[in-house]
């Protein structure tokens, strides 16, 4: 047990996850955002063995601009039948779900609440293509960058081009990330894409922003995930101790909105900082991580994550995937659920979906995708193009 986990009276201040749930990600034209949220919430309550009245509060991770429903937290809270319990929304772009987990941890650690349901949910396919294209043009700094037609893939493409220039990272190495994540996505019944792909197929796909092609990019999706957190004392009362996965390390950092003010363009400074915070708090190093879910919104993002998190040295990310070090059996298995790439990326749900996968890996419930003897896991959830990064370390005793 790490040092900073008990107060002077000796009570246990740890916060753990006692239940997880996850809906199927995809083009869910069969469901509204609150119905998606319900799927994940019901599964998490059942997983925890809790009655609904055990929940003290909820935190919703979602990005409002994708929903026609304004203030989406309100409609979710009502549909989950959680009124009049408190709720609030966290928004940090694609990292909104991890921000929800972080504030739930804070709420429990402060003593304000005992059991908090975190719901990440996003309905992205309500928007028309023109609406999506308009949003796509405003991901960077709108004053100085978006006026030149920059796009989400365009920024990561510029990271990839710089990474190739400094370290020789090839388009084939990028494609190998997609091949791995589709390989595992094909074995995840919650994933959007459940088909394996080949390097040749990835390299033959249409250009999006050089050197990135269609198969270097994750896809928008609808979906929801839920984790239920509680304090150690409450966990003991419930008797859920055995299955609990503890959230022992939390890191969160930011970097400039504009790429024009970043110290370098071959990684995400926010991820480097968040990782160091999380490792220090959990009292571990990168080498202790048995399994990780990282933010592979683009293939280059996963390669940079290997380096930013210290799974390999700076510049070695391309070699890391080429040597299959991020497969099960390698140095650090990464995105064994298929990642954003194959699972799909309902942006508010993604951070919670990552926690769902890592918790199930640490509980040994992942079947043919199981990483043997995993006891320490990590999630790395990036907002935007690295303006925000949340790194969490989970541990099973």
């Amino acid at each position, binding site marked *: 047990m790490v040092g900073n986990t008990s107060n002077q009276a000796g009570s246990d201040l740890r916060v753990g996850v006692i239940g997880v749930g996850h809906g199927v990600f995809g083009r869910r034209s069969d469901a509204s955002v609150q119905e998606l949220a319900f799927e994940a919430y019901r599964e998490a309550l059942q997983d925890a063995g809790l009655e609904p009245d055990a929940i003290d509060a909820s935190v919703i991770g979602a990005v409002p601009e994708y929903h026609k429903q304004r203030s989406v937290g309100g409609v979710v809270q009502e549909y989950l039948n959680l009124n009049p319990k408190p709720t609030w929304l966290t928004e940090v772009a694609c990292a909104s779900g991890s921000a929800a987990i972080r504030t739930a941890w804070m709420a429990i650690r402060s003593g304000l609440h005992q059991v908090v349901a975190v719901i990440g949910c996003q309905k992205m396919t309500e928007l028309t293509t*023109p609406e999506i*294209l*308009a949003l*796509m*043009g*405003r991901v960077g700094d*709108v*004053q*100085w*960058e*978006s*006026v*030149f*037609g*920059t*796009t989400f*893939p*365009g920024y990561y*493409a*510029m*990271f990839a*081009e*710089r990474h190739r*220039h400094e370290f020789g990272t090839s388009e084939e190495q990028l494609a190998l990330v997609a091949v791995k994540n589709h390989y595992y996505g094909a074995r995840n019944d919650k994933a959007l894409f459940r088909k394996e792909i080949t390097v040749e197929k990835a390299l033959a796909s*249409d*250009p*999006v*922003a*050089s*050197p*990135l092609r269609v198969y270097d990019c994750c896809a928008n999706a609808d979906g929801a995930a839920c984790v239920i957190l509680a304090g150690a004392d409450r966990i003991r009362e419930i008797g859920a101790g055995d299955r609990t996965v503890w959230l022992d390390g939390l890191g969160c950092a930011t970097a400039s909105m*504009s*790429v*024009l*003010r970043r110290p370098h*363009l071959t990684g995400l400074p926010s991820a480097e900082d968040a990782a160091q915070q999380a490792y220090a708090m959990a009292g571990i190093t990168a080498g202790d991580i048995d399994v990780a879910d990282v933010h592979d919104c683009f293939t280059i993002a996963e390669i940079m994550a290997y380096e930013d998190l210290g799974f390999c040295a700076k510049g070695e990310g391309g070699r890391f995937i080429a040597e299959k070090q991020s497969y099960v059996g390698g140095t650090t298995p990464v995105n064994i659920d298929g990642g954003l790439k194959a699972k799909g990326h309902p942006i508010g749900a993604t951070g919670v979906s990552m926690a769902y996968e890592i918790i199930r890996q640490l509980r040994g419930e992942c079947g043919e995708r199981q990483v043997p003897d995993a006891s320490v896991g990590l999630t790395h959830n990036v907002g935007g193009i690295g303006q925000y990064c949340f790194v969490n370390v989970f541990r099973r005793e």
Partner: protein
Amino acid sequence: MFEWFGRVSYAPHTKVAGFARHLKDGRLMASRCEQCGHVSFPPRADCPQCLSDQFAFDELSGVGTVLTYTKIDAAPAGFEELVPFVVGVVDLTETGRLLAWFGESIADEEIAIGMPVQVVPRIFEELEQIKVYYSLERPGTSWVKADSS
């Protein structure tokens, strides 16, 4: 007049709006804090170092080197008819960085990280309203500057 800056303007209201008028006159400007001397590009009205809101514009040479670039095939709204286009991030010799399109003096095949470029103030000639931007051109490219007033 900051709505002059960019083919599509998302943020017309800013305290550094004068930047667009200088650009129309052929001048690329950074901001300089009048209290502590901190220089910034892109320009900003409020000094991150000493918090002063007193600033002046300083003209930059526009000389720089390419830090990275990408050719964009999938365009956002308002840029559909321009694809494919290449944007680059440039390290300016004097201060800061800038993101812009490559202009006609540089062929796509020539574009490379580390190449020297000249940032040139531009006006969209084909548009009726005043719209200004800047492009990345071959070093030595000249352009017209209005008399400084």
